[in-house]
């Protein structure tokens, strides 16, 4: 039996992905727009997303727009921006009650799609420019959001690592854009970019819930865009590490944040991607992993330590929070675990545990509409057709030798340490 059966249909200017299931009490619509990650457009896109979210021509203030959503049984509507390898994705999500659970049934799914169409196609703009006041407000909020990264030290350290490690590559950009570029955006320039984005972006609509695909497709006639050849990002180039960089910064905080970046050069769609996922699981992805056992449980150096991979960029990142004086000790234990992995020093049990947990993680992710959409969207980025079942099967089939081969490709790139100086 296929887990999460996805029906794909070409629509006018976008692709409709329908995942029919009766396990939810709501229907979820996720609209994704993808373009190459680029310093000239990243800030425009982040701002555009928030301007489109805040009002439309019909609901020309946030209060009116939100009041309308409340009327639709508190439909939730939020936006999100993310980097996936060399691409920048902006998403709009509408989650709306399935009327079969309500006393006074209204056609909520159709209204949800009409609402999405209103947001995307009928923006609060006139004469080739967005509403000036809205743009100014959202510029302020975007700048504040970018500034706030500094205040969350775990996020800040992670951002600094990527900035340093990927200097000169688009991936060094933040998904929310560049703070110094916000002020120069005008209601006209933003509107011009909006027109370009809806002409050129690769666009996908994912719908999960107890929906009839044919009826849904009919409702989606409300969403019509010009046909397009989606713009492709410049091919990813393999990057070799010339020399390991060590960067130390200091702030008056209590706990040091250690973030380490590796180049794997393995991305979703590559044959060894699944072995890479296994590597990450044994090394640092879970609470049975080598990092957790050795840095936390054996040495008591930290509360959190883990590794994760950037599936479309070919990176692996380790993060941990430690006492600043323990920097050398922590780095050396982490390096030893990497050595062990490269030497094939991991057991059948560690492999079995990791397979069981990854399988569980994938299946659990498909229980939430958000998790399911994220899994399926990997295929849009990588231009593949890997179902959840295939994924589970591939993980099951990974052999030790393949993990060791993957390990040999992994290169340490940058060690970033934000040390604490409070009380010194």
């Amino acid at each position, binding site marked *: 039996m296929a887990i999460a059966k996805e029906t794909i249909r070409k629509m006018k200017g976008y692709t409709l992905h329908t995942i029919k299931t009766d396990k939810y009490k709501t229907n979820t619509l996720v609209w994704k727009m993808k373009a190459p990650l680029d310093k000239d457009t990243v800030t425009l896109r982040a701002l555009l997303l928030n301007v489109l979210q805040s009002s439309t021509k019909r609901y020309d203030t946030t209060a009116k727009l939100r009041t309308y959503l409340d009327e639709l049984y508190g439909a939730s509507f939020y936006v999100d921006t993310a980097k996936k390898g060399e691409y920048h994705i902006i998403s709009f999500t509408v989650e709306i009650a399935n009327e079969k659970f309500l006393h006074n049934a209204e056609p909520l799914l159709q209204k949800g799609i009409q609402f999405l169409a209103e947001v995307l196609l009928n923006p609060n703009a006139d004469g080739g420019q967005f509403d000036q*006041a809205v743009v100014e407000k959202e510029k302020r909020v975007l700048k504040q959001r970018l500034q706030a990264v500094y205040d969350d030290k775990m996020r800040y350290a992670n951002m600094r690592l990527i900035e340093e490690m990927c200097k000169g590559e688009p991936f060094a950009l933040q998904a929310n854009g560049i703070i110094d570029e916000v002020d120069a955006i005008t209601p006209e320039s933003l509107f011009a970019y909006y027109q370009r984005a809806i002409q050129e972006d690769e666009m996908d609509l994912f719908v999960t819930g107890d929906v009839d695909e044919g009826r849904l497709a009919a409702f989606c006639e409300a969403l019509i865009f010009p046909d397009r050849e989606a713009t492709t990002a410049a091919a990813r180039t393999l990057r070799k590490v010339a020399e390991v960089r060590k960067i130390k910064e200091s702030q008056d905080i209590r706990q040091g944040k250690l973030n380490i970046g590796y180049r794997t050069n393995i991305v979703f769609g590559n044959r060894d991607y699944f072995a890479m996922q296994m590597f990450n699981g044994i090394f640092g992805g879970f609470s049975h992993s080598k990092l*957790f056992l050795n840095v936390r449980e054996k040495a008591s150096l930290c509360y959190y330590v883990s590794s994760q991979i950037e599936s479309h960029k070919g990176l692996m990142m380790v993060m941990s929070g430690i006492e600043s004086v323990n920097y050398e000790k922590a780095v050396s234990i982490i390096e030893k675990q990497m050595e062990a992995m490269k030497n094939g020093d991991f057991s059948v049990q560690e492999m079995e545990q990791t397979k069981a947990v990854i399988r569980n993680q994938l299946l659990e992710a498909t229980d939430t509409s958000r998790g399911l959409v994220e899994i399926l969207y990997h295929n849009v980025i990588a231009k593949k057709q890997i179902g959840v079942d295939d994924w589970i099967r591939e993980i099951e089939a990974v052999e030790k030798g393949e993990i060791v081969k993957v390990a040999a490709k992994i290169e340490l790139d940058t060690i970033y340490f934000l040390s604490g100086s409070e009380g010194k």
Partner: protein
Amino acid sequence: MDTQRFSQLDETLYFETLDNGLKVYILPKQGFNKTFVTFTTKYGSVDNEFVPLGKNEFVRVPDGIAHFLEHKMFEKEDGDVFQQFSRQGASANAFTSFNRTAYLFSSTDQVMKNLETLVDMVQTPYFTEQMVEKEKGIIGQEIMMYNDNPDWRLYYGVIENLYKNHPVKIDIAGTVESIAKITAEQLYECYRTFYHPSNMLLLAVGNVSPEEVISFLKKNQEKKKYEKVPEIKRRFPEEPIEAAKKEQKMHMNVQIPKCLVGMKALHTSQSGTEMLKNELTVNLMLDMLFGRSSEAYSGLYNDGLIDTSFSFDYSQEQGFGFAMAGGDTENPDLLAERLHDVMFAAKEGKVLTEEGLERTKKKKIGAFLRQLNSPEFIANQFTRYAFNGMNLFDVVPVLEQIQFNDLRKTAEQFFGEDRFTVCQVLPK
């Protein structure tokens, strides 16, 4: 085994109280791959003064001990239980709140095996001095991590401002100094007092068979000997009605100031339907005052006083309760003043309208349906409700009963000048 059917929601709940007093609830979820199980004791950070099982005198235990105990439940003589959960494809976790400690796992496979691992783990304490010492380094770093988090500090700052004596003002994890004093013997004492099955609740949500869960648990529990125990005696200090402090400003390494205002709740000895109705009414009221469709939200956003980090929340438990509102802001003093003014306008009968109430009720009903998609939400909320004599599935019927008059009355009583406080995190 009893059952309760909620036909409008298409859900059926199964429950039984076992001979040793353990309450078991099961909510099967069609179509889900995973099962989520929580095993929860009614014991949290506020329970720091009590009569230990088999003794007569009250003791005062170190701050952070309930949370410390939670960490140590995962380590046994033959190793770390996380390892076993991983082998069985489960992801396990635990958390300690002010008045609960929950152990949980989710898995899509070997659910009964994982259930056994969970129950046996929690019912087989094993603490040594050496293990306790080693954990102090780990929890010390957990405390440091939260210390560096300005949102966390701000949240606790509000509670500290509101409460003079009640232990809710103490950080759940304690401090590096307080946990230094914890011993293995103290962990056993807390364990014996609070982890008796009659003080606990087990809930399974997801892809499970109720009959299988119940019959497994019966067998499992019959193998273990539990004596009947007297009711647990807890003691809480006298707490004045008014807020302990009007304001607090903390200076941290941040770029954007943060401001939260807090209101101390009055009726914190409620339980059952009375508590549910009060809690829902306060939540409706706060949503009408500060939700994204409210006049206040637009005003504050347009005037540059808030951004999307703005949030508001109400918490009510036995013996304490508070509402909070705020977020990142360029002008923390003005934001505090404006939030204050909205609250006190509502107290005087302004802002709230009948039409707004009907709309917000609809919104809350939709939000409830959305939450029912999440086994995690159901498990956590259900347990909290059950410990307070409420039923999660009463939310919609009780929401529907709330009248404009109830809202007016709540607004009038809920806000009081002497129960209002402001907390700010400011750049150094």
